[in-house]
C-alpha cells in the first residue's frame, strides 16, 4: 500500500476520519471502508450511473471522484434516504418511513433487480427539489445518465411522477 492521507468527511450526517490511499475511489471508500454497500458499482468509468451519490447536495458519479477529493465534503448515499424507526439502519419493506421517492418506486414497480436503483434515487433527490413538477421529457432527460437493464424505464418514469405528486402535497 502506498502513502495514505487522512480525510474528514460526513456521510449521511455521520462524521468520519479515515486514512486513504490517494487512488481510492469514493465509490470504493463508501463500500469497502465504510461498509455502505448500497452505493453500487457498475461500469466504473462514468457511464452507468449506479454509483451516483450526493456530494455537497449535488449528484455526482462516485467512481469518478477520488476519496481524497471529498475531504471536507458532505456525502449522502441511498442509506441516508429512509429513516428506519427501529434504529437498525436498514429500512424494512413494510416500514412507513421510506423516502417518498423510494415508496413511489416500490408501488410503481420502478425496479426489478434493483442494481441501478440506488444511483437513480440519488439523482432524483436534487432533481425533484429543482423540478417539483417535471414533465415526462424532463424526467427522461434526468434519467438519461442511468442504465437500467430490467424495466425499460417506463415504470421508473411512472414512479418519478408519482413521487412528484406525493411530495407536492
Amino acid at each position, binding site marked *: 500500500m*502506498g*502513502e495514505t*492521507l487522512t480525510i474528514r468527511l460526513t456521510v449521511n450526517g455521520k462524521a468520519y476520519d479515515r486514512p486513504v*490511499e*490517494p*487512488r*481510492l*475511489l469514493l465509490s*470504493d471508500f463508501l463500500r469497502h471502508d465504510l461498509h455502505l454497500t448500497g452505493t453500487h458499482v457498475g461500469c*466504473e*468509468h*462514468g457511464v452507468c*450511473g449506479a454509483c*451516483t451519490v450526493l*456530494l455537497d447536495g*449535488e*449528484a*455526482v*458519479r462516485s*467512481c*469518478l*471522484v*477520488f476519496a*481524497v*477529493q471529498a475531504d471536507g465534503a458532505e456525502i449522502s448515499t441511498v442509506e441516508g434516504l429512509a429513516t428506519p424507526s427501529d434504529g437498525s439502519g436498514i429500512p424494512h419493506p413494510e416500514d412507513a418511513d421510506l423516502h417518498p421517492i423510494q415508496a413511489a418506486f416500490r408501488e410503481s414497480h420502478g425496479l426489478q433487480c434493483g442494481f441501478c436503483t440506488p444511483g437513480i434515487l440519488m*439523482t432524483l433527490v436534487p*432533481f425533484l427539489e429543482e423540478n417539483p413538477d417535471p414533465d415526462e421529457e424532463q424526467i*427522461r*432527460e*434526468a434519467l*438519461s*445518465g442511468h442504465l437500467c437493464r430490467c424495466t425499460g424505464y417506463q415504470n421508473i418514469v411512472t414512479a418519478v411522477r408519482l413521487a412528484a405528486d406525493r411530495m407536492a402535497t
Partner: protein
Amino acid sequence: MKPAPFRYVRPSSVDEAISVLAAEGYGAKPLAGGQSLIPTMNFRLAQPAVLVDIDRLDELRGIRDGGGDGATNGLYIGAMTRHSELERSAVVRDRAPLLAEAMPWIAHPQIRNRGTMGGSLAHADPAAELPAVMLALDARIHLRGPAGDRTVQFCDFCTGFFSTALAPDELVTGVEIPPLPAGTGTAFLEISRRQGDFALVGVCAVVTLDAGGVCTRASLTLLSVGDGPVCAKTAEDALRDRTLTPDAVRDAGEAVATIDIDPPADIHASAAYRRQLARVLTARALDTAARRAAGA
C-alpha cells in the same frame, strides 16, 4: 483498486500548482473535475505519477461580465468553473448564447456537476463541445506557467488530436469571449446516439447580418469530424456578402460535407454518415442562426 498508485498534491494557489508541475515534469498531471482523467486512469490508460488537484482553487473559478482580465469588453470565465455553473448562468445565456445552448449536450447532469471548462479545453477531445464553441466565438485562452501569463487565440490553442499549445508546466486559467457584433445570431446543434453520448457530429453557427439582411460574416465550426474542432472555411467564405436564401444555406451544408471536413469512421458512425449529418446539421444551424440574427 482500479487506478495505478500516484502521489496527490493539493496546492493552495495557482502559482504553487505551477511550481509543483514544473518540478515534477511530464509525470505530473493537473486534476480538475476529473471527469475525463479519472475514467482514463480507471482503465489505466493514464498512469500519472503525481496528481496536482487544482479543483479547489477559487482564483480559477467564476464568470465575470465586461472586461474580465483581458483587453476586450468580453466575458471572462475562470478555468475551474463547472459545466453546471455555465449551464445555469444568466450572464452566459445573455452574452454567449451559443455556449449556453451547447451546455446541456455535454454528457449527463452528474458529469456536469463535476466537470470544468478548463479541464475540457485542456483535454481537447475532438468530440467535445467546448473547444468547438470557443473556436466559433473566437475566444482567447489564458495560460499561466513558470514564466508568467500568456494568452493564445483559441484557433492556435488546438494543435491536433488531444493536443494543445499548453506546456506540461502550464495551467489554463480562463477564457475570454469577445462580445458578439450587432446583428449576430448563433446556433448549436448535435446528433448523438443517445442523450448524453459523445456527438457523432456537432455544429456551431455564428452569423452576422447587416441592416439589409446580407451576411457580413459567418462562422461554421464542427466537432467530432476531425482531430479537433474544425473551421469550415470554404463554406464560411462562400456565405460572405450573400443573402442567406434556402439555396445559400443548402450550398453551405454541401461545401462543409464535401470540401471542409474529412471525418473519421469508427464504431459509432461511418465517414459517409458523418458527412451526411454535417450536411444536414450545418444547413439547420445556419438557418436558425440567421433567423436569430434577423431578430437580434
